[in-house]
């Protein structure tokens, strides 16, 4: 058995990995690498869940790690990458309100704010170890950073990735704050997969260039060729 201190150290390192991936998703312009970074982030979460399993020994964490690995490291990134190849968009250089640098600055401030807010809320409840508190802060920060991606990117397909990264935040938060029943986690994954499929199919319509638009929608049986929409 590995020592507890070592595991806590590993988890701390993984936390740093999560922050780096989140920052990368916010700032990068290359779409394909956003997808792989998302897969990496999910993989980090899997590792965290495994580490927590060694720390606490609850089987639910093992199940969460398994489901997360299958769905978020393999299926969803693969699906999105396939769609991306189809619509042939490599770079996402349009940002709505925030440039990447401002987003990064804002997310740093957000983390501080969340840290302070949570430490005020959690004071009342019985002993929460330092590590778990950090996990919760990081979870919510990841959610907010994902939200910024969703609202600052213009392409629907990058918005989906922002949303997915938000969901990772919820998972992280859930893992560290409490032990959710496995069935709930599982249902969320199902919901996530449906949502990803739907939004990516819809975004095929939005993200492709106008000439390709009808052709592609037609391929997905969404639009008749005779309809002319500009």
């Amino acid at each position, binding site marked *: 058995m590995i020592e507890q201190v070592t595991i806590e150290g590993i988890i701390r390192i993984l936390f740093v990995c999560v922050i780096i991936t989140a920052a990368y998703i916010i700032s990068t312009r290359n779409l394909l690498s956003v997808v792989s970074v998302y897969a990496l982030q999910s993989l980090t979460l899997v590792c965290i869940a495994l580490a927590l399993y060694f720390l606490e020994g609850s089987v639910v964490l093992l199940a969460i790690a398994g489901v997360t690995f299958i769905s978020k490291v393999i299926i969803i990134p693969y699906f999105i990458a396939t769609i991306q190849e189809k619509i042939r968009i490599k770079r996402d250089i349009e940002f709505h309100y925030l440039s990447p640098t401002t987003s990064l600055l804002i997310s740093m401030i957000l983390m501080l704010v969340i840290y302070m807010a949570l430490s005020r809320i959690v004071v009342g409840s019985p002993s929460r170890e330092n590590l778990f508190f950090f996990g919760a802060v990081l979870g919510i920060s990841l959610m907010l950073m994902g939200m910024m991606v969703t609202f600052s990117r213009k392409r629907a397909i990058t918005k989906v990735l922002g949303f997915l990264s938000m*969901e990772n935040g919820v998972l992280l938060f859930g893992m560290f704050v*409490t032990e*959710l029943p496995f069935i709930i986690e599982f249902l969320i994954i199902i919901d996530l997969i449906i949502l990803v499929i739907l939004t990516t199919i819809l975004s095929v319509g939005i993200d492709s260039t106008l000439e390709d638009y009808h052709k592609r929608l037609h391929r997905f049986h969404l639009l008749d060729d005779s309809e002319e929409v500009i």
Partner: protein
Amino acid sequence: MILIAFVLVSVLSLVIIAFARNHRQMNSVCIGQALIFTTLTAYLVVFQQVPVVSFLIDSQYFFIDHLGLFEVLIATLIFTCAAVYARGYVEGLLKSGELEKGSLKLFYVAWTLLLLVIVLAFISDNLALFWIFAELTTIISAMLIAILSARENIDAAIKYIFVASVSMLFTFAGFIFLFEMSRVSLGTGTLNWTVLMQHATTFPPGMMIASFALVFIGLAAKSGIFPFHTWLPEAHAKAPSAVSAILSGVLLNVGIYGIIRMYAITHQSTAVVTIAPMLTVFGVLTIGIAALSMLPQKNLKKLVAFSSVENMGILLVGLAISTPVSVFWVLFHIMAHSFTKASLFFSSGILHRQYRSRFVSDAADEIKDVFRLQPLAAWGIILGGLAIIGMPPFPLFFSEFFILLQLGTVSLWVLAAMLLLLFISAVALGYFVLMNFTSVSEPEAQTDIEQYRTPASMKVPIIFLLVLLLVIGIFLPSGITGFINQIVTELNF
């Protein structure tokens, strides 16, 4: 048993739709499904002891209490009307090529699933289960919006999905807080609404406030409350009118239903002193934004959609007062608003068909000779408009009047602000009707507008809903008031 009946009927409808060959068959299936659902619900209301105890119901996952049953009844009634309405309306969409033949099956499959998922959401005891079903309603209804072959529909649907789903994730984080609180005070964590209700007094107020705030974000987005209302006018205006009626009349209720449940838990703890003013602020802001957006609005469906936003604000303010009387009228308002809004969207759907060629997405509606061409729809809009701004004898008059009366006992300033904003929104509706319905073209030009032959199936739901509203408003049936009273007692206000 009843749960299995709901699921079985839907599965059966799906199978029949999969094999159906034409639009009429599919539509008949949907009408049938909605009718069976309504009958089942009515049976529950009349003959069963509520809260219903039977197989699978009253387990830790599902339960039926008065509030759930009330919402299910509203939902099934509106779905029945909308399905009947869709018979003529979708036919028109098909003819004009706005809806592709290939998407027809998808449309009805989504429709059937939506009804099932909404009913399941209302009867889930477990908050996480409710969350999942609420998410599914978002996804399925977004499909129904995106189904029309137009780019702006896909835009609206994507906006809807993102705003609603992103906010719903916050709701989930709120539920995690709630779960942790219950774990601390009960030993084992639970998200069962009934259990949480019993033990809410022991929850620490700080966590409770955080939890409510997070949950509120998502549910507010579902029900179109400021500042998360941005998706609503787009989605409701772009959707096919039969779907708009469902979105406004039923789906907004899902959000409000969740807020009521959550607020009932909060009401048990001391956190309510912080939460109630928060709700009031959001409510008044919502009404304000909606009223001011209605004023310059030239597009009928958008106008009606903003009026939904406004009514959600009224509901929030009513809830924030949190006296038994105000909660009673909030529930009454939910019912009356759903019926009125559905009938308004049905009427504007007819006008949309009539003046379709001139309706260019966001541009102003050009309505001419409306009384000659579509007298029923015109009167539907006028009567529905009178109902929605709260004129007697329509039921919304009573709910708004009593909510305002209750508000007067809390704060006169808020009351004054609300009165002013309600007046603005009423003026906006009246102005729109006056400007558009009075324009008559020259006698010699009259022939160049072809009259849209409104099928009877599109007229019947409007007449039915308006008559229903008048009956409720004039007689205030004691069955309804008694039923709502029981909900209020159950919610422990």
